[in-house]
């Protein structure tokens, strides 16, 4: 989960449409069914998908009126609040 990537993708959603991200997620998730995929390739896909879901969550908050910076910080707090570190 990388904040600059999520920020970039959120901007992409604002400039274009979230459907691009949703369809990309579906494509990447489908790609993980390839049995010959290497571990590192799977890791990269997993990370990309997480960032895309993150951007969708941030965009949801922005749509509801939360300022973008606050939405990004709130989302990252949610991520950290979901694990025991």
């Amino acid at each position: 989960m990388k904040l600059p990537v999520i920020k970039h993708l959120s901007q992409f959603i604002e400039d274009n449409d979230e459907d691009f991200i949703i369809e990309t997620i579906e494509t990447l998730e489908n790609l993980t069914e390839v049995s010959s995929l290497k571990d590192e390739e799977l890791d990269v896909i997993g990370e990309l998908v997480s960032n895309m879901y993150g951007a969708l969550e941030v965009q949801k908050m922005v749509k509801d009126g939360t300022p973008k910076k606050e939405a990004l910080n709130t989302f990252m707090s949610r991520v950290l609040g979901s694990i025991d570190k």
Partner: protein
Amino acid sequence: MVQELEQDNLQDIIDSNDIVVVQYSATWCGNCRIMKPKVKKLASELEAITFVIADAEKFPESRKLATVDNLPTFATFKKGAFVNQVQTNKFDVLKELVEEIS
């Protein structure tokens, strides 16, 4: 069959089933999404084991039953007690964890 946790009551499920495998997950976690169909497939092959998917964000009390420092975390429980856990997006690693307890 995989059970999706609907309330923060994982301990009750662990207490009432002999062997339980839990996937701690989150809606925005890519690796969790990737593992979900694989967990469902494994669960359909191992009917004696109770598989549960727990939202780590929504259910903090259930999360406390295992050390969840990354997602997805898979934890095994036997006769009401925690046995082992692993963080992985690799089906083989999950399978090893489940074989260890079954």
